[in-house]
């Protein structure tokens, strides 16, 4: 009964979404007040209905209703309750339901926090989000219904959740990622609504900014979590693989990053308007494209969801309507947009534009690198694979000019500035950079130019950003958003130094160890103590204990090799001693003869800085959103904004 309720509310929500996608839009175009007033109640309705749906699916998981096909395929009675709940988004159908629910959540948030906005404009925005919802709801209902039953013969127990997903990182990774992907739909809807109304001004940018920042923060958090999870769960110490699905999440991130910066220019200087609109459309389009790439099985990837041409075709048609429609609207309407603002060559506008160029260039490289294998195959040139070496190399060149622009731009004034004014900043910044770089250089003996350069660039960004903070504080009390920007830029610096040092100075060794034997790596002595059999709720495992010593310090590490019975899968859980300056990492490989084990040990300096960078960026975006100016926007009366 419960699954039928969920299915029913899902169907009704499609009806509501269809109304939301049409009626208020017509109302806004023809100025019919009654139609416009309908937008907000419909949004509340969709949110309530989808919440019931999601709750019903969670209920079926919690109470092990294996007559529901999706539950039977992705859960098991031995699975702990928290994984049974997170299994709701453990596979294709349920994660799509979560996707539309999050869309409903964002739509509701827009409806709530835009009371001060012109009602007609809000109706347009909500209506555009309704149109987006129609496609996804139809997709769920017609191709991927999570409530499908398997009466009369249903399995006595489920096939279990993919063991890779039985992990805290994976409980929160997808919702965060979807919050980011779907969050860009708000900026998209604002842009489309503005194009439809022909009102592209700085008000539009001011309204879009906090939403874009929020979506970007969530997406950053989602990507960071995914990287962290891969690091400790996949058992070989990697943290980014340039896998097509990772790229699919990275592309909207790059577009979103460009959008944040471009929106700043549009809001403050009323410039780059047409470009900003295009970025707003692109960020969400790339999120949709990512969904298509992942769900259609068109690209071969470790994140394989069901590969099904019908589903792929459905999304493709949807993409053609939404992205194709949006870009066509842009092409037709954007020619009316004139950015009248003037600025000189050396000004913050231009530097931010250069920043955008670099981000979009990076985006295009990732896009082409991801799609080229597909195009190559389809035009009959055979299969090629573009992987990590290509992307790594491009990224290492790309970061040099990008970091230099990033470090200078916040110091440069709007409209025009003189390079000579910045001279004062150079001496202390160079001093700090030299100090940090030298320390890192001596500690790790970095004799590779590109890695040392990475360290210098990170130190340089840190120093320049800190300098900017100090001199700005002397002038005025800094708003929160300024702190947010600084923090996000430091996050980028942390990421760069983390990549540079980890790539250069990480040591790893594959060894064959008997209990009692040890191996030395970078002044650390890893001693293999023993292996015990342990039993978890739905798995049995070998748990290897290691004692790592260095001087007088001792660290206990426990690496597990788990065997999940139902799917007959073997998983590794790496033993990690995490630290700001280095991680010690042990994973168990094969059980060899005579009680010996293949063991992988790593010492990874600075690897935490990668995720620290991500966390700083997320905190930065949170600070920006918390800034008073947005609250002022929200509480200002209609006339003023």
């Amino acid at each position, binding site marked *: 009964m419960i699954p039928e309720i969920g299915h029913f509310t899902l169907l009704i929500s499609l009806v509501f979404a269809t109304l939301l996608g049409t009626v208020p839009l017509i109302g806004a175009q023809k100025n019919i007040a009654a139609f416009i007033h309908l937008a907000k109640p419909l949004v509340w309705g969709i949110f309530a209905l989808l919440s019931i749906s999601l709750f019903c699916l969670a209920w079926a998981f919690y109470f092990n209703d294996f007559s529901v096909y999706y539950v039977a395929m992705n859960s098991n009675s031995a699975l702990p309750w928290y994984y049974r709940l997170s299994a709701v988004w453990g596979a294709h159908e349920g994660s799509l339901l979560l996707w539309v629910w999050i869309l409903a959540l964002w739509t509701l948030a827009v409806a709530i926090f835009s009371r001060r906005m012109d009602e007609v404009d809000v109706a347009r925005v909500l209506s555009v989000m309704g149109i987006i919802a129609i496609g996804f709801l139809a997709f769920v209902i017609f191709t991927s219904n999570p409530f499908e039953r398997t009466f009369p*013969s249903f399995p006595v127990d489920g096939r279990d959740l993919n063991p890779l997903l039985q992990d805290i990182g994976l409980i929160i990774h997808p919702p965060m990622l979807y919050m980011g992907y779907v969050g860009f739909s708000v900026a998209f809807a604002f842009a489309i609504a503005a194009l439809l109304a022909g009102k592209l001004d700085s008000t539009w940018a001011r309204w879009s900014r906090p939403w874009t920042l929020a979506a970007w923060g969530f997406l950053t958090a989602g990507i960071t979590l995914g990287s962290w999870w891969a690091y400790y769960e996949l058992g070989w110490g990697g943290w980014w693989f340039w896998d097509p699905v990772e790229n699919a999440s990275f592309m909207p991130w790059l577009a979103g990053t460009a959008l944040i910066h471009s929106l700043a220019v549009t809001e403050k200087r009323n410039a780059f308007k047409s470009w900003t609109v295009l970025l707003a459309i692109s960020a969400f389009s790339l999120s949709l494209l990512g969904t*298509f790439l992942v769900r259609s099985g068109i690209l071969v990837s470790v994140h394989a969801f069901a590969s099904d041409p019908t589903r792929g075709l459905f999304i493709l048609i949807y993409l053609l309507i939404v992205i*194709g429609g949006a870009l066509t609207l842009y092409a037709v309407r954007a020619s009316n947009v004139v950015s009248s603002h003037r600025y000189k060559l050396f000004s913050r506008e231009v530097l931010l534009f250069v920043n955008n160029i670099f981000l979009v260039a990076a985006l295009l490289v990732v896009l082409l690198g991801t799609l080229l294998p597909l195009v190559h195959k*389809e035009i009959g040139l055979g299969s090629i694979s573009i992987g990590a070496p290509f992307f790594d190399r491009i990224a290492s060149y790309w970061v040099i000019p990008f970091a230099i622009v990033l470090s200078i731009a916040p110091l440069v004034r709007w409209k025009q500035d003189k390079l000579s004014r910045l001279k004062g900043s150079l001496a202390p910044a160079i001093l700090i950079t030299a100090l940090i770089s030298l320390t890192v250089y001596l500690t790790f003996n970095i004799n590779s130019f590109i890695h040392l350069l990475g360290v210098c660039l990170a130190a340089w960004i840190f120093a320049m950003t800190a300098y900017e903070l100090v001199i700005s504080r002397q002038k005025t009390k800094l708003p929160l958003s300024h702190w947010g920007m600084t923090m996000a830029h430091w996050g980028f610096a942390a990421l760069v130094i983390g990549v540079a040092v980890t790539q250069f100075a990480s040591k790893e060794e594959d060894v064959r160890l008997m209990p009692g034997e040890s191996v030395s790596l970078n002044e650390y002595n890893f001693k293999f103590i023993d292996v015990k059999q342990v039993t978890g709720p739905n798995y049995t495992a070998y748990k290897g204990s290691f004692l790592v010593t260095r001087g007088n310090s001792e660290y206990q590490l426990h690496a597990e090799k788990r065997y999940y019975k139902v799917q*007959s899968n073997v998983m590794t859980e790496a033993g990690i001693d995490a630290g700001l300056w280095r991680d010690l990492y042990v994973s168990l490989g094969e059980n060899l003869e005579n009680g010996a084990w293949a063991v992988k040990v790593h010492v990874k300096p600075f690897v935490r800085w990668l995720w620290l960078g991500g966390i700083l960026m997320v905190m930065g975006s949170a600070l920006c959103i918390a800034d008073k100016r947005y609250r002022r926007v929200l509480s200002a009366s209609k006339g003023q904004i």
Partner: protein
Amino acid sequence: MKHLKLFIPVAAFLAASVFFYMGLFSDPTDVKNANLQRPMPEFSLPDLMQPEKTYHREDLLGEVTLINVWGTWCVTCRVELPYMTKLRQQGIKIVGVYYDNAAEAEFSGINLQQTQADVKQMLANLGNPFVFNIYDKDRDLSLDLGVTGAPESFLIDPEGQIIAHRRGAIDERVWQRDFAPLVAQYQGK
């Protein structure tokens, strides 16, 4: 001319869509069909209960046969056994391919006598659908078949072509939908 460049994004997107469309229908990694319309692989493996006896591919030919990959360690196989036994009573030839669990083998070592005793007991309790069981001791046959887990079943025609494939348990619903029509086709001849 100036306005024409605004159409570049939509044009690029449409061009990419053409490739997306082509890509949708040419995925070589589609595992759904990869197991069908290909011959049952060659093998030479012992009987599970009488290891001195050896089976080959030829032993499976001549009539339509259901190959069921299973193991005593597999929970879902228990569920499937009674229904399979019923199928045997209806005259379906079912041959088991028994394999030891990879992790189990790694974790505690395999003792053939123990396995035989477990199998005997399990079949006595739940029903024995098998004409005989092939012991896939190094899991080579499972590998050739592309087995991803147990239970998994393959229906082969009298010439040894795989004509149906199922990952997971076979129950009444699955049998009637995916297997019964094919079996009827051959048994009718």
